[in-house]
């Protein structure tokens, strides 16, 4: 399958008054056409910043420091702002994390949807654009979409707003949607429906998905590949089967143990010991070393580099257990 997105050694740092924050620090991964990739990690691990780096919307004091992002073989980091604008919302869409803040409070839903189409197709008629918006709203499970389009965001619940945002991302049938916690604001029944719709879209139109979440269980159900992020780095990536059933990195193992369905009934939930470190004062060496159960001397001195275990499997650890052996 053809690769749609290839990120190599991407570093996005924030130069704040309090100090340097390496929000994304040397990450590499690929997404193939139509593939669903999960990006999993705790709060503050750099998932959203990874997404914003891809669509080129990192605000000061942040900056992409080095690395490369290739989208359909086009290097995005050298692209002009006009070029980026024509890709955004068109070939490359993003669903933001907080649906309550994402829609403009003073513009009607139809305005905010139609402009997404018109920004990329100057010649389309209003009626045609309206029809496409209405149909897409219907697709994400909003009833009587024609009426709802006349409403303002505050007339919608959080879940409804998130579905509007999902619809907006799907409008131009992009090649890649970065979905930042797209279903967290939805209740469980709708969650299933929206996940199903997005999966269908990917199948039908060949849209690839980067599914950002802290919920390993959700992503295990839909993704074909998972990247696990910790403190700005991807510590382990591989196929869903490998990550879920044969995790090797101590952090991934901890994560999987803390998923409720992995536990026996009545047993207390497993929890990774210690706290997520502050991004301003990451421990020297491996950022995970003071919480890790496998720490060796080297972990406290050096940062582990990425090692390829197989074609798709990459691990960043000095002392992981290769359970395949």
């Amino acid at each position, binding site marked *: 399958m053809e690769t749609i997105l290839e990120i190599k050694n991407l570093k996005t740092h924030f130069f704040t008054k309090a100090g340097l924050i390496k929000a994304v620090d040397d990450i590499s991964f690929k997404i193939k056409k139509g593939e669903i990739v999960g990006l999993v990690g705790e709060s503050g691990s750099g998932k959203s910043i990874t997404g914003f780096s891809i669509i080129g919307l990192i*605000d000061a004091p942040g900056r992409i420091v080095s690395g490369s992002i290739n989208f359909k073989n086009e290097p995005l980091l050298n692209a002009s702002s006009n070029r980026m*604008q024509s890709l*955004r919302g068109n070939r490359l869409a993003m669903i933001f994390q907080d649906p309550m803040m994402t829609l*403009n*409070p003073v513009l*009607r839903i139809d305005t905010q949807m139609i402009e*997404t189409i018109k920004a990329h197709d100057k010649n389309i008629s209003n009626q045609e654009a309206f029809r496409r918006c209405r149909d897409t709203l219907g697709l994400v499970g909003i009833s009587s979409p024609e009426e709802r389009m006349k409403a303002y965001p505050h007339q919608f619940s959080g879940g409804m707003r998130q579905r509007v945002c999902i619809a907006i991302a799907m409008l131009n049938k992009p090649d890649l949607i970065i979905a930042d916690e797209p279903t967290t604001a939805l209740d469980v029944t709708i969650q299933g429906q929206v996940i199903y719709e997005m999966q269908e879209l990917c199948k039908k139109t060949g849209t690839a998905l980067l599914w950002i979440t802290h919920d390993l269980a959700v992503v295990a159900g839909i993704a074909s590949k998972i990247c696990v992020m910790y403190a700005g780095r991807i510590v382990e990536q591989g196929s869903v089967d490998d990550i879920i059933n044969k995790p090797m990195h101590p952090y991934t193992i901890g994560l999987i143990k803390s998923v409720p369905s992995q536990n026996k009934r009545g047993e207390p939930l497993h929890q990774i010991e210690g706290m997520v470190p502050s991004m301003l004062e990451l421990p020297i060496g491996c950022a995970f070393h003071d919480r890790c159960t496998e720490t060796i001397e080297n972990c406290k001195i050096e940062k582990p580099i990425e090692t390829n275990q197989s074609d798709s499997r990459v691990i960043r650890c000095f002392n992981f257990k290769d359970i395949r052996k």
Partner: protein
Amino acid sequence: MTAFILRRSSQSIIVLFIMSLLVFSGVNLVGDPVEMLINPEADQAEVERVIKELGLDKPITEQYWYFLMNAFKGDLGTSFIFGEPALKLIVQRMPATIELALFSLFISLIFAIPLGIYAGLKPESKISKTIMAGSILGFSMPTFWVGILFIMFFAVYLGWLPSTGRGEIGSFLGVKSSLFTLDGLSHIFLPALNLALFKLSSVIRLTRAGTREIIHQDYIKFARAKGVAESRVINVHLLKNILIPIVTIIGLEFGSLIAFSTVTETVFAWPGMGKLIIDSIYNLDRPVIVAYLMIIVIFFVFLNLLVDILYTLLDPRVRIQGSN
């Protein structure tokens, strides 16, 4: 919406009622009403006659009722100086003041909003810093002094623009204003610019503050993520949001533009009600002062109502709460 306007209107009536009480008390309870309402040059027989006529010998509650009824009929007393009803004098001069205030509002908006947005988008640039420094200057220079400088420079030294009066008055769709003739425009320009200067600074600051806050909102970023052109992000997504506080402040400040146009009107001999009130204070023409106060209060109340309506039109979130 209708319910909202009705509710706000009834609130306005209550405010007006309270103000009438205050103005009435101000004139009738504090100090001697005889002295305040009767021309000091009148003789004893005249004084007695007017006391009877004004009902000043009646109990205070009855007097208030009398004042209220008269005010309701549009009778706020007769000017000592002009011998004409005070209200009529003020209404005659009102258009000149309103056109001056409107034009200066127009000047301040077309300059201040773009400048404020620019300063908000690029707070670190040299141009922005110059804009902000300039706005502090506009804030702190006394209006009358700037007005006199304007006259000296543009009217006396360069001789480009006239320095006093309202100029020729044109008529358009039944509205008479000096904005409709070239001569009138040349007359209004300097006083309007003078009056605008203060507003210019405050609108620039307000726009800049609004821009700096809104530009970091997620919905602006999301608009960009949709590939919407930067011009549309600024002119639609950003502007529509910062207009909400701007309209509120402008609406309220328009009242103060009118109320404080007195200085500018005096400097430029602009025949509006501001100049009338200064002359009346100078001449102790009390009925005119009372009438002016009442008119200004009505004006403020009306403006508040207008601002609230505009506000609900701009901000859909308020609209819904209002109609529920």
